[in-house]
C-alpha cells in the first residue's frame, strides 16, 4: 500500500540477492530467522561478507541473536524512531541532496514535519537511548548501500501504512532505493500475498496493479472480458466487516481463508458470520469457518495438487505444479470458479491455469513477457517483464537514478500515534503476537506434522513480571483483554521486556489468541492491530 | 531447546568474567577462568557462557571438547597427569599411575610428552610440574595441593 502510493507499484524494490551485496541491513519488526528463514539465509550471506545487521524489534529473537545491533523498541513506536532518524539525517546534513532534488517531491514539508522529532523526544517513546538513534541514523545515511526490510511488526498496526511511509521516507532521504544493494524490502507473510496483489485481488486494482479508476484500463478489460466493470473500488476486508455489521452485506464467498480463527476480536467475527444469509467456503480443510458455511467446495491443495503460479517477496513469479492427485471429489480452484460461473449461466469454458495466466499477461504490461516456458526455464521471473525478450527486473525503480525523473517519488509526512490500546491499571500488559518458526498462521497446515517442539501454545513473560504476579515457570494463567479471555501456560523468557508478553496464534484449538486482539484497523490497508493489545494476567484459581 | 541455564548461574558467570571482553577470541581465556573459579566445567556452565558471550552452545562445546587439559570432573579432585611418552617410559613412568590410583580424590591421567625429557619421569599435579617424579614426591605434592 505504502510502496504503491509512493512508487506506483506495490512490490519490494530489491532482490534477495541484494542482501549479499549491501553494507547495512535494517530489519524493522521482522523476525526473519523464524518467519522467513530462507530470506534470513540471504541476509546472513551479506553479513558474512561484511554487511552490518541492525534489528529493531520489541523482542529478542533468533534474528536479533545474529544481529550486530538490536534496538529493543517499545511496541508501536516505529514512526517515532523513523522520524527521529530523519531528524538527525537532516539536522546533520547527511541526506542525499542530489537524489532528493532530482527524484523526490515534498521534501520541505517533510523536513518541517520531522523538525520537532529530536532523538531525545523519540527516546522517551521508543525506549531507545538517543545516542543509539543518532548512531543508527548516521550509519544508515552514510552506508554506501543499505536495505530496509520489514514484516508484520510494521504492518499489523492501526497505523500500518504510516509505519511503511516512515521507512520509505528514510530511503528517499538517503537515496537508498532503486539501486543494487539499496532498497525497500517488505517480507511477505504469506506465500502468495504478492501474487494476489499482482492479479488484482485488491479492491481498487485490476491485474498488474492497474487502477479500476482509469477509464482506459477499464475499457481494455471490459473488451477482453465482455462485461462492464465497476468504476469505483470495492470494499476492503474492514469495510466488508462493517457492511456485514450494518446489514448491507449478506452473502460471502470465502476462498482459502479461515477468518473465524485468524481475525482479530474473534467473538465479534463469529457473530458477524452467524448473521449472514449465505456463506460459501472453498477450502482444503473443514476449518472453523467452513464449519459455519451453507455450502463447502472441496478444493485441491494449490501447491501440490494443481497448476498455477505464485509470486514471492522479490516479485518472482514462479510455477506451481500438481505432484499428486487430490482426494475424492476435490477440484482445483480454477475449475470450481468456472463451474460456479457456468451454474450461474455464464458459458465459461473449462480451461487450465495456463490459459488464465496467458489472458492476464496480455492485459497486464508488467507480466507480458512471462510465458510458462520462460518461468520454468529461468526458475521464475521478477516483474516487470514487459516483453518476451526482457530478462526480468531484479531491482525496481532504477528510473529514480535517471537524469529526468517523472513522476517523482513523494515524501509523505507521518505523525506518530500510540497504539489504540496502551497499558492501563486494569490492563497493564501489552500483548504482542507473532510467528514461531515451526508453525504457521492458524495451524491448519503446520499442525499436520510431528514437530518435536509442538507443545501447543504458550506465552512468554519476563521472569520479574511473572514473579510479581506470583506465576511460576509453566503455570497456566488467564489472559484477559477488553474482548475476551484465554488460558495459556506462561513460560519465563528474557526475550520480552518487562510489561510485554508474547503469544502466537498457531493453535486456535488450544488457545484462541485472537479472541484477545483488537480489531482496530488501518483505514488505508484494512490490516488489524494484532501487534498491540492491552491485557491483564491473572493466576488461575 | 537450549539447556535451561537458570538466571543465577548466568549472572554468576557474567560476574566471574566481567573484566574479559565478550568477543569470540576470549572463549578459551573465559573457559580457563571458569575452570579455575568453579573447579571444573560443566554443561550448564557452557550454556551460561553461550548466553553471556552470544556464542552458540554447540560451538562452545566443539571448542571445549577439543582440549585435553580442561577439567570436567566434579568434586574438585586433584588431577595428576603422568607423562608416559617415550622418554619418561624409558624411566618406567608407566608404573606411577598404578601406584597413585590408591590416593583418594586423585584422578590420574596419562599425558603425552610434558617437555621435561631431561628430568623425567615427569608429571603435572594440578598445574605444578613435578620432575624426577617418584611415588613419594608426587604424594607430597598432592598433599600440598589439597591443604595449601
Amino acid at each position: 500500500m505504502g510502496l504503491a502510493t509512493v512508487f506506483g507499484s506495490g512490490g519490494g524494490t530489491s532482490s534477495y540477492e541484494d542482501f549479499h551485496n549491501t553494507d547495512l541491513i535494517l530489519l524493522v519488526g521482522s523476525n526473519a530467522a523464524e518467519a522467513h528463514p530462507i530470506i534470513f539465509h540471504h541476509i546472513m550471506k551479506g553479513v558474512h561478507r561484511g554487511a552490518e545487521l541492525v534489528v529493531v524489534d520489541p523482542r529478542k529473537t533468533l534474528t536479533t541473536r545474529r544481529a550486530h545491533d538490536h534496538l529493543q523498541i517499545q511496541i508501536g513506536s516505529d514512526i517515532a524512531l523513523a522520524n527521529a532518524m530523519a531528524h538527525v539525517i537532516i539536522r546533520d546534513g547527511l541526506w542525499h541532496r542530489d537524489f532528493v532534488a532530482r527524484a523526490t517531491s515534498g521534501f520541505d514539508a517533510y523536513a518541517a514535519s520531522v523538525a520537532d522529532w529530536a532523538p531525545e523526544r523519540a527516546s522517551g517513546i521508543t525506549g531507545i537511548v538517543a545516542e543509539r538513534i543518532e548512531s543508527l541514523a548516521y550509519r544508515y545515511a552514510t552506508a554506501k548501500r543499505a536495505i530496509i526490510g520489514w514484516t508484520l511488526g510494521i504492518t499489523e498496526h492501526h497505523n500500518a501504512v504510516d509505519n511503511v511511509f516512515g521507512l520509505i521516507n528514510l530511503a528517499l532521504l538517503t537515496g537508498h532505493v532503486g539501486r543494487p544493494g539499496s532498497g525497500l524490502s517488505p517480507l511477505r507473510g504469506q506465500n502468495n500475498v504478492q501474487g494476489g496483489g499482482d492479479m488484482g485481488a485488491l479492491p481498487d486494482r485490476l491485474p498488474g496493479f492497474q487502477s479500476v479508476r482509469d477509464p482506459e484500463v477499464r475499457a481494455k478489460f471490459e473488451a477482453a472480458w465482455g462485461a462492464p466493470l465497476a468504476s469505483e473500488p470495492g470494499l476492503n476486508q474492514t469495510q466488508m466487516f462493517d457492511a456485514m455489521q450494518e446489514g448491507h452485506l449478506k452473502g460471502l464467498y470465502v476462498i482459502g481463508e479461515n477468518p473465524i480463527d485468524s481475525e482479530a476480536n474473534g467473538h465479534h467475527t463469529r457473530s458477524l458470520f452467524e448473521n449472514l444469509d449465505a456463506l460459501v467456503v472453498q477450502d482444503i480443510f473443514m476449518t472453523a469457518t467452513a464449519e459455519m458455511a451453507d455450502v463447502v467446495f472441496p478444493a485441491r491443495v494449490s501447491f501440490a495438487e494443481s497448476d498455477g503460479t505464485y509470486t514471492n517477496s522479490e516479485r518472482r513469479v514462479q510455477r506451481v505444479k500438481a505432484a499428486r492427485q487430490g482426494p475424492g471429489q476435490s477440484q482445483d480452484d480454477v475449475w470450481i470458479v468456472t463451474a460456479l460461473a457456468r451454474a450461474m449461466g455464464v458459458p465459461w469454458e473449462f480451461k487450465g491455469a495456463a490459459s488464465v495466466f496467458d489472458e492476464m499477461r496480455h492485459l497486464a504490461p508488467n507480466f507480458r513477457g512471462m510465458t510458462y516456458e520462460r518461468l520454468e526455464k529461468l526458475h521464475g521471473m521478477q516483474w516487470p517483464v514487459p516483453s518476451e525478450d526482457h530478462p526480468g527486473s531484479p531491482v525496481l525503480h532504477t528510473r529514480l537514478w535517471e537524469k529526468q525523473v517523472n513522476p517523482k517519488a513523494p515524501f509523505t509526512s507521518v505523525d506518530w500515534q500510540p497504539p489504540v490500546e496502551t497499558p492501563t491499571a486494569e490492563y497493564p500488559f501489552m500483548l504482542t503476537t507473532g510467528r514461531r518458526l515451526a508453525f504457521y498462521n492458524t495451524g491448519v497446515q503446520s499442525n499436520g506434522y510431528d514437530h518435536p517442539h509442538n507443545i501447543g501454545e504458550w506465552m512468554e513473560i519476563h521472569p520479574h513480571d511473572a514473579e510479581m504476579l506470583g506465576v511460576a515457570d509453566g503455570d497456566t494463567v488467564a489472559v484477559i483483554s477488553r474482548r475476551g479471555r484465554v488460558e495459556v501456560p506462561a513460560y519465563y523468557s528474557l526475550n520480552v521486556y518487562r510489561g510485554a508478553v508474547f503469544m502466537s496464534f498457531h493453535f486456535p484449538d488450544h488457545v484462541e489468541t485472537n479472541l484477545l486482539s483488537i480489531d482496530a484497523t488501518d483505514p488505508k490497508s484494512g490490516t488489524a492491530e494484532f501487534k498491540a493489545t492491552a491485557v491483564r494476567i491473572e493466576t488461575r484459581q | 531447546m537450549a539447556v535451561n541455564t537458570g538466571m543465577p548461574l548466568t549472572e554468576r558467570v557474567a560476574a566471574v568474567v566481567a573484566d574479559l571482553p565478550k568477543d569470540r577470541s576470549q572463549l578459551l581465556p573465559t573457559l580457563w577462568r571458569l575452570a579455575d573459579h568453579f573447579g571444573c566445567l560443566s554443561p550448564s556452565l557452557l550454556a551460561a557462557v553461550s548466553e553471556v558471550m552470544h556464542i552458540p552452545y554447540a560451538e562452545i562445546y566443539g571448542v571445549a571438547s577439543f582440549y585435553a587439559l580442561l577439567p570436567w570432573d566434579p568434586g574438585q579432585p586433584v588431577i595428576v597427569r603422568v607423562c608416559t611418552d617415550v622418554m619418561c617410559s624409558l624411566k618406567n613412568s608407566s608404573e606411577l599411575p598404578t601406584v597413585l590410583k590408591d590416593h583418594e580424590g586423585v584422578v590420574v591421567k596419562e599425558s603425552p610428552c610434558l617437555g621435561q625429557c631431561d628430568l623425567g619421569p615427569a608429571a603435572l599435579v594440578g598445574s605444578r610440574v613435578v620432575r624426577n617424579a617418584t611415588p613419594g614426591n608426587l604424594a607430597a605434592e598432592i598433599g600440598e595441593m589439597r591443604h595449601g
Partner: protein
Amino acid sequence: MGNRITLTIDGQSVSVAEGTTVHAACEQVDTFVPTLCWHENLSPANACRACVVEVKGSRTLVASCSRVAEEGMVIETSTPRVANARRVVAELLTSTTDYSTAPELLDLIEMSSADTRRFAGGASWEQPVKDDNNLYIRDLSKCILCYRCVEACGDDAQNTFAITVAGRGFDSRIDAGFGRTLPESDCVFCGNCVAVCPTGALMEKTEWTLRSENKWDDNQITTTETICSYCGVGCQLSLHVLDNQIVKVSSPMDHPVTHGMLCVKGRYGYQFVQVEDHMPV
C-alpha cells in the same frame, strides 16, 4: 568479467577466469577429479582429500576443491602419488564407515580400485541409529565427517549452529553438545543438514522407514517442482511422490531463492496435504 589465466592440466593448456579453483578448471576440460566433502553451495572443508592432485613445485599433494588456480600452474591428476592417496582415502573411509548409501564413495572405491578390507578390522564408527525425533534420523555409522552438515547448519546457510564437530582425532564426531538429543538442542529441524549429507548418515525419517521396510524404490518415485505454500519467500520444492504420497521434499541446489535449502515447514510440513480425511468428500 575479470582476468583470465592459463594453466596446464595433464599436459593440456587451459584458460580459466581468475579465481577459478583447480577442481573447477579440471571440470572445464572434462577431467574428472573425485570429491566427497566438497559441495557446490558450501565452503570447501578440505577434509576428505579425495580431490588431491599434484601441482608441480608443491611438496605435498593439493586439494583441488579449494586451491585457486594460478597462472602457469602445472597440474597432474593421475600420477602414482595421486592414485595411492585416493585409494588409501577410500580404504580408510570404508574401514570405518557403512558406505552402503554413499554414491560418491562407492564411485571412489571403484575408480581407485580400493581394497575395502585392507585396513578393516580395527576401530570403526559402528553405532546405533539416533532416532530421537520424527523428522530425521542420524545414523552416524555412515558419517564420513565431511563437515557439510555443520556448514549448512552454520554460516553457509542456516546460521543456527546447533551442531558442531566435537572431540578430536578418530573420536571426532558431529555433536549437538554433550551428546544431547536433537529436541534438547538448538536444532530447528530445517533439515538442511540432511539435504547436503552425502552418505545417508542423515536421512528423513520417512525415507529411512520406507527403506527399512524395503518400500523405497527410486524408479517408482516421481519428482515434481513446485513452490512452497507457507510464507512469502517463494522457495522451490521438489516433491518426491510414491504411490500418490509425498515421501520427501527437497529443493534444487541451483535455485536462486533456496540454493537447495529449506525451512522446517517447507521440508517437513507437507503432511497436511495427504491427511485423507481432512475434508468429508
